[in-house]
């Protein structure tokens, strides 16, 4: 057998082994994640995975210096205390948040959002908190700020340094939710014809007016955040709705299915990035 024949045979075997590139499904999502993270590591080669959870502070030295000064007295501390107290306070029926979550709700933030096989939908941490309240006879909380931000701040704090660990089960409904989130992320909308990716992929690390645009990888790791622009705490819903408005697109309602799917996609893309929340942003 000539060397040429051997090479041809090896090449053919290689092609057979590689198989077709999956278009959708769990394997396709894993391939998306690999390409997504490789893109950001290529663009920020000096940045370790753990740093992506620090958003603009990871990619801009001036902002990082200011952030380090701010963090001597973190502006989210009041929310953290309030959230801890609320989390540990029993409901009127004697139960508490701990009864609704795995591991008593401590150190679980990095596993949200989750696919709920019973309902076939994506459940964010915020939605799980309200479902817990309602199951125990309490009124649901508003989603964008206030006590919801305080509770998620406390729960995030108990997950600090735990890497995002989002799973996509081999269920067509979970895969559809992931695909919908992916489509939302890359689709241009609004009068400015922007997509999420326009700012957080294409222009990540660059300045837009006074802001440094955070890379999409790890972008949710710091939530909830105290944002100076808001002068208060805000949840992921608050950020999604304000991003929509900035694109001159009418925001969806908090916890809209589209926003939950988007959070699922972004969090899955960020698997391996440690939780840094609660955080601060300009």
């Amino acid at each position, binding site marked *: 057998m000539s060397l040429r024949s051997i090479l041809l045979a090896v090449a053919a075997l290689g092609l057979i082994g590689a198989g077709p590139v999956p278009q959708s499904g769990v394997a396709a999502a894993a391939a998306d994640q690999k*390409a997504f993270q490789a893109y950001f590591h290529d663009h920020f080669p000096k940045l370790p995975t753990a740093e992506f959870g620090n958003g603009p502070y990871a990619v801009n030295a001036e902002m990082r210096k200011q952030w380090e000064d701010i963090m001597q007295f973190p502006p989210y501390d009041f929310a953290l205390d309030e959230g801890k107290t609320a989390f540990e306070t029993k409901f009127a029926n004697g139960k508490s948040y701990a009864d609704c979550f795995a591991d008593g709700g401590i150190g679980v933030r990095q596993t949200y959002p989750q696919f709920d096989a019973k309902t076939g939908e994506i459940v964010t941490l915020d939605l799980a908190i309200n479902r817990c309240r309602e199951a125990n006879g309490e009124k649901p909380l508003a989603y964008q700020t206030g006590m919801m931000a305080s509770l998620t701040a406390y729960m995030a704090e108990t997950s600090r340094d735990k890497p995002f660990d989002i799973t996509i089960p081999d269920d067509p409904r979970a895969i559809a939710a992931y695909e919908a989130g992916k489509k939302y992320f890359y689709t241009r*909308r609004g009068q400015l*014809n922007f997509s999420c*990716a326009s700012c957080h992929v294409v222009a990540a690390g660059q300045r837009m007016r006074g802001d440094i645009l955070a890379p999409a990888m790890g972008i949710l790791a710091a939530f909830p955040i105290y944002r100076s622009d808001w002068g208060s705490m805000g949840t992921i819903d608050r950020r999604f709705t304000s991003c929509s408005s900035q694109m001159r*697109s009418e925001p969806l309602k908090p916890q809209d299915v589209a926003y939950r799917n988007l959070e699922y996609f972004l969090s899955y893309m960020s698997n391996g990035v440690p939780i840094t929340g609660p955080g601060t942003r300009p």
Partner: protein
Amino acid sequence: MKRLLILVTLLAFSTASHAATPADAQAALANAVKVETQAAGLGNRWVPTEAALKAARDAIAKQNWDEALAQAKTADALAQRAVAQSQEQETLWRDAVIR
């Protein structure tokens, strides 16, 4: 000179916009709402479209038919662009995916 003045006068009259009627304004608003409903169905309502629709409704409430007509036409044009954007993006978004 006299001929020129007559011509200019005729042109001015022929091009002068007629005042909008209530029916004009209501019809234009109905059209705009119809297109915006289509944009909403595609999950793509634009902020300025909603603002123009509100301005058109406010103008109708004040019986300012010219303003209502202008705002409704603006809303209609914006909503049509939103629909077109969504239809284009139905396939174009895939080109932006990181691979």
